[in-house]
């Protein structure tokens, strides 16, 4: 019998116009944490989807515990004790945690010995216990729609554990989590390993790999580049292998030159759909040439704040001024025209029309004006020209160029398309919400460079990020938000990581 619990040999998977996996061979030992690294679109998700039974490979063989298998479905994968935690959660929003976890493997009891029914009560108990065992505490009777992202992720993990998975695949589990949540998740992953599980971890964050992984495979354009021992490899080396060039982690940045005030937010209060105040009396301003970053743990009102400034959400009180003009009640269109670019948090349901092609999506904000249209008539040429230029400039990769349906692009490249479009608007105010989420380090580096470039051109930039590193890296001024309130506004240089972290947790007040 072989030493490996998972062996994927010579796996090739093609999609129209692209070879997502090209003759990839990886072998994973029982009880190790195995990391997968690679640029956006390198084929990591595809490879793991094959292991998880979502896709069947065009070529190649898979051995689990030394036995050759053909994994035909997720169900089959589950039978082989393989479980996958997807980045895009597959949860029924309307259901409770328990209902989600037991879906497909429902415990059945009979009423009056005749009518079978799903025994939710018992399942609640089992899940309560299970969640305690792994330190993933949840309230099994809560509905998914009431949970935040990290809780939802716990549900996904519990789902896999409930099915007694031995091999756990995590596809970018940390991309949506706060630093604290990430730390917690990593301990859980280590705990899982202690419990004898084998773990495959896809991530773009090298320090996470360094922290928990034993070995790491690097993919590039579908090909396996190398598999290395994490202990003996530096993050720099990993990054270099992956991107193919040297990567600097700190962005080079000149001291800021602040100009006129561009954005002024004055005592802004925003309510959510349920009438709950999610942004409370927030005031701040951003000058040209300034990167103003809002730090905070997820769901503390930062997204609503950005939406309110961009005009997607109604303001319940307070004012917003752009270049001195009150835009509080202006339409989205007016705001865009008066000079706001916006990279929204939810790229798939807001930032893009997934069923349209890339060129159309890149023109999404300017379609109504010249050169994209004239007198109400569209100019397709202009869309194509513009699209091609940006694809080139921002290195957006896809199967069929500007004609690619955006839905088929990898998550990272979808994000790049939005960023390209918004930066090219050259608005005086640019709002970036989580611009680098899910991007590979090479791409992150590029985006950071671009943000700084725009700042140096005199643009005002509002950055909302959950990643403290990113904020400390590029911000000139930091505002920390907690529970809808700005706790602290200060220059980047006067703050330390720790301080910001404390404000973020609401532990410290001004």
């Amino acid at each position: 019998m072989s030493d490996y619990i998972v062996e994927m040999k010579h796996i090739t998977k093609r999609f129209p116009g692209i070879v997502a996996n090209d003759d990839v061979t990886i072998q994973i030992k029982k009880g190790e944490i195995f990391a997968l690294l690679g640029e956006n679109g390198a084929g990591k998700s595809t490879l793991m989807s094959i292991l998880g039974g979502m896709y069947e490979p065009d070529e190649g063989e898979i051995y689990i515990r030394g036995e050759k298998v053909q994994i035909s479905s997720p169900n089959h994968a589950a039978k082989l004790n393989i479980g996958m935690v997807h980045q895009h959660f597959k949860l029924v929003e309307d259901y409770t945690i328990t209902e989600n976890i037991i879906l497909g493997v429902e415990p059945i009891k009979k009423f009056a010995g005749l009518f079978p029914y799903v025994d939710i009560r018992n399942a609640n108990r089992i899940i309560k216990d299970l969640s305690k065992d792994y330190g993933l505490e949840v309230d099994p009777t809560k509905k998914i729609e009431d949970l935040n992202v990290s809780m939802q992720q716990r549900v996904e993990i519990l789902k896999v554990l409930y099915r007694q998975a031995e091999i756990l695949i995590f596809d970018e589990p940390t991309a949506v989590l706060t630093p604290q949540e990430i730390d917690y998740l990593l301990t859980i992953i280590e705990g899982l390993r202690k419990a004898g599980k084998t773990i495959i971890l896809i991530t773009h964050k090298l320090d996470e790999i360094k922290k928990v992984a034993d070995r790491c495979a690097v993919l590039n354009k579908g090909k396996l580049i190398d598999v290395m021992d994490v202990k003996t490899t530096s993050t720099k080396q990993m990054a270099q292998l992956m991107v193919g060039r040297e990567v600097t982690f700190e962005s080079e940045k000149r001291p800021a030159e602040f100009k006129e005030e561009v954005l002024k937010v004055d005592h802004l209060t925003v309510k959510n759909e349920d009438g709950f105040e999610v942004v409370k009396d927030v005031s701040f301003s951003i000058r040209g040439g300034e990167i103003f970053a809002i730090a905070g743990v997820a769901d503390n009102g930062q997204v609503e704040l950005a939406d309110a400034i961009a005009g997607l959400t109604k303001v319940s009180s307070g004012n917003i001024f752009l270049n001195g003009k009150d835009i509080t009640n202006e339409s989205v269109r007016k705001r865009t025209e008066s000079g706001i670019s916006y990279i929204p948090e939810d790229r798939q349901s807001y930032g893009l029309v997934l069923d349209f092609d890339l060129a159309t999506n890149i023109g999404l904000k300017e379609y109504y004006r010249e050169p994209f249209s004239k007198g109400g008539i569209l100019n397709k040429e202009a869309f194509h020209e513009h699209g091609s230029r940006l694809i080139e400039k921002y290195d957006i990769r896809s199967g069929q160029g500007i004609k690619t349906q955006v839905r088929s692009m990898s998550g990272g490249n979808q994000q790049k398309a939005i960023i390209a479009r918004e930066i090219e608007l050259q608005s005086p105010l640019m709002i970036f919400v989580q611009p680098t989420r899910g991007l590979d380090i090479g791409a992150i580096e590029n985006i950071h460079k671009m943000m700084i470039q725009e700042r140096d051109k005199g643009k005002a930039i509002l950055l909302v990020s959950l990643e403290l590193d990113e904020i400390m890296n590029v911000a000139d001024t930091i505002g920390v938000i907690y529970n809808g309130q700005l706790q602290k506004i200060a220059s980047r240089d006067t703050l330390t990581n720790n301080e910001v972290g404390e404000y973020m947790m609401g532990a410290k007040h001004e």
Partner: protein
Amino acid sequence: MSKRNDTQKEKFIQKVGRVLAWPISHEKWQSISIPLYSILLSFIAAAIVILLIGKNPLQAFFNLLQGAGIMPKPSYAAYKSMFTDFLSLLNAMTPLVFASLAVAVAFKAGLFNIGVSGQMLFSGFLATIIVGYSGLDAMIAKPLVLIIGIAAGALMGGLVGWLKYKFNINEVVSTIMLNYITQYVVSFFIQMYYIDPVSRQSRYITEESRLTLVNVEMGNLKMDIPLGFILAIIVAILLKFVMDKTVLGYEIKTVGTNRNAAKYAGMNVGKNTVLAMVLSGGLAGLAGVTYYLGYFASIQPKVLSSIGFDSIAVSLLGNSNPIGVIFSSFLISVINQGNTYMSSMAGIRQEIASVIVGLILLFSACGAYLKYKVSRMKEKDAERKEGQE
């Protein structure tokens, strides 16, 4: 041994599949070839049905074409010819084109306008009572009929859009409700004030207000000239242009595909929703006036035209593409128009015609599947080739 047989059989099936799929394998032509293919399949199915009841399908189809004025009949009544038959085909087709366009526009905006029938009736009724009995001059009456038709339909469509946008009322429900309400209210007014006791429907409108010139004598022919038909073609082309080439079309499509993104892009979602329904209703209104004041000249109380529902399917058959809609309406109209003659000549019950229409629609509903299958097949082939290299 049996395994080998199986693979051989499989291979054979694949081969057959590929041969069958060949005509529709060219992606560029699929938007045309797939509907054609579906139609072909449905005619084969219909032929089988006709064979089953012991008649000759080829003769039946030929009679269908004769009846519709596409092929010459052996004999004609006085003042009739293939040409007059063809004109009546166009006459009957006109409302169907408009109605299907109405459905298509709403569809592009992500809305299902099940209320085309009601909108048709409402606008037809208003035009009838305002212009139809007014004795106005043709030069004024005809344009006025069109305007009232568009306005009434647009009003009702707009109401649906507004209810949807303002109160989140599902347009399927509101249009169904409005269909009933219109049907009963119009019926009430007709019965009370506009009834013709002989025909038992609304009194005939004046020749001047009618959108079809009836019994126009030319040579030894008397023909019905559907003025609305030309308009229908123009409107379809215009609509195609609007949908593909203009900002308005782009906005409607974006709102229809992803409302959030549309809002984000600065489009006014509410305005576009209402606008799309206004447009759709306006087209339905045109269908209404060309139906009640063109093809017919009076209104049957308490009857909703089935065109409103047929058009949903016709618009699909035409791929929700305005030009496609012209062709699909043509096809369905040929069947509907030709069926009296077919029944008379081939002795096949008219219901068969409805069954054929049903089959065509059934098969064309599977167009997406055909496309999917073919592309899968091509992928597989491509892979196999690469594998061999």
